[in-house]
């Protein structure tokens, strides 16, 4: 089976600094793959390279068989890769509904002239979009806050809205950058549950960057360990837990 995401020898350099060095692995649909490593290991850079925010200085990235290295972020997103951001990617002044509608942007039809002149097609497309957005929010029990600006929502609610927005177009590949940061323990478990369900039931390929090790160990199918830009381990949680190099990377020399 063709892997969903294929990284071959991917390197990223920033003005002489090697942020990623020869990273190679495959990711598959329906799998939860965690990316862990000490600070500065290159985890967010990896996500940035995959989603097009940072150019790869070497190597190749393929998504569903098509090369995506070198493409602009919005092009990669249209192909089916969606991501969240470490510092929160929501649009604070927009309501939850509007945020999700932004997630549906590509899906909503309506030409420029149609919109400006208020054509029937444009208005119909907009109404459909709104209905779908509200449905998606209701599914996550967020219907009540749909019309509030997201800056007024609690941290947990914001995370949820961001997930709904990211999932709005049913992306085959989802990159989640620290999805449980700032959430209370029960909310964290809930989030991991949602993530597992998305992978298991919807068949979405999920990669997540996370620091909370026990969540990673219990929630993921595969773990990839980065250190100083290099991939030093890849395997099931049990395999990685016993890996000597991983222990050294985290704790210094044992």
């Amino acid at each position: 089976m063709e892997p969903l995401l294929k990284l071959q020898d991917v390197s990223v350099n920033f003005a002489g600094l090697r942020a990623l060095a020869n990273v190679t692995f495959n990711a598959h649909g329906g799998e939860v793959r965690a990316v862990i490593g000490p600070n500065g290991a290159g985890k967010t850079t990896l996500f940035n390279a995959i989603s097009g925010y940072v150019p790869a200085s070497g190597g190749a990235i393929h998504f569903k068989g098509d090369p995506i290295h070198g493409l602009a972020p919005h092009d990669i997103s249209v192909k089916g890769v969606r991501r969240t951001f470490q510092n929160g990617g929501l649009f604070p002044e927009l309501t939850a509904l509007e945020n999700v509608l932004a997630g549906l942007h590509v899906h909503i039809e309506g030409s420029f002239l149609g919109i400006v002149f208020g054509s029937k097609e444009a208005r119909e497309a907009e109404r459909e979009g709104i209905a779908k957005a509200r449905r998606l929010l209701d599914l996550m029990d967020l219907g009540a806050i749909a019309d509030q600006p997201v800056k007024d929502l609690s941290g947990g609610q914001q995370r949820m809205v961001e997930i709904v927005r990211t999932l709005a177009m049913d992306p085959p590949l989802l990159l989640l950058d620290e999805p449980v940061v700032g959430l209370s323990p029960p909310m964290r478990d809930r989030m991991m549950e949602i993530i597992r369900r998305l992978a298991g039931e919807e068949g979405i390929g999920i990669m997540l960057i996370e620091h909370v090790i026990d969540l990673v160990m219990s929630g993921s199918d595969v773990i990839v360990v980065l250190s100083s830009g290099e991939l030093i381990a890849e395997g099931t949680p049990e395999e990685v837990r016993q890996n000597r190099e991983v222990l050294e990377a985290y704790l210094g020399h044992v």
Partner: protein
Amino acid sequence: MSDTKAPSVPSMTRWRRVYYLIPVIALIIPFIANEYLLWVVNAILVYTLVTVGFNLIIGNLGQLAFANTAFFGIGAYTTAILMVYFDIPYALAIVASAIVGGIAGFLASVTALRGIRLYYLAIITLAFGELMRWVYLHGDKVTDGSDGLLLPKASFFWLPLDSEAPKFYVFLLLTVLVVKATSNLMRSKIGRAIVSIRDNEAATASLGIYTARYIVLAFVWSGSVVGIAGAMFAVLTERVLPEAFGLTEVIIHFGMVLVGGAGSIVGSVLGAIALTTLPEYFRQFPGMDELFFGIIIVLVLLFLPKGLVSLLCRISPVFNERYYRD
């Protein structure tokens, strides 16, 4: 936890229909106002479009781009030149001003696209405006330089615009059409894309939205709207002067956006109404308009940063403009 502040959407739509009444009621103004008052009302209409166009860039796109006076001047001079040298009827000249304004907007957007932001963008757009003013001043073979270009008597199709009342009807029509079109634009996926660029450009791209396209669109639209306002201004003042599009004018436009409320179309209208009468009054005393506008903006920034429209929003959530239509 439910919030009783959240507006129930269907009823908002019903309330918003009240906006359509305003131009209808306004139709009686020429019957109750004298010539001078009508002139002021016409100036308000012109500045409403100026502010709506400028607010799109400052408030909705969130870019500090001061190309507004450039668009305004380009619109005014385009109309003036076409009417003086080519005998083009006013209605066509307005279209031309819109197109040329749009092209100017496109040029202004090029710098924003190259990643030039915040201070650089402010400086280069100010430079653009001043360069244009230098062109008006020194292109005196065409523009009559600092004397200003005198417009011939204009007619809108069959209607001669020889007094303020016919001008009012034409300006009202244009203002209503442009404001409604802009409102349609903002309450759609296009408007959402523009505002999301302001709120978080990186995240916008991650949703498949081609940010460059919407930045250009916003600038072109703004340029066209303000170009039309320039065309109206030319006929309002009947003489187009380079001074009218200089750095003093920048602060006036800016003041209207901030006082009314950045990012809000209703705010733009409020700002224009509140502040239009004043530049005309202050123009007699050199320096007072700059002083006044400077003080007003400082006060607004310190005490009412979201503008007059925020006061209205406290009264009723109707005035809270959203970016979708149902």
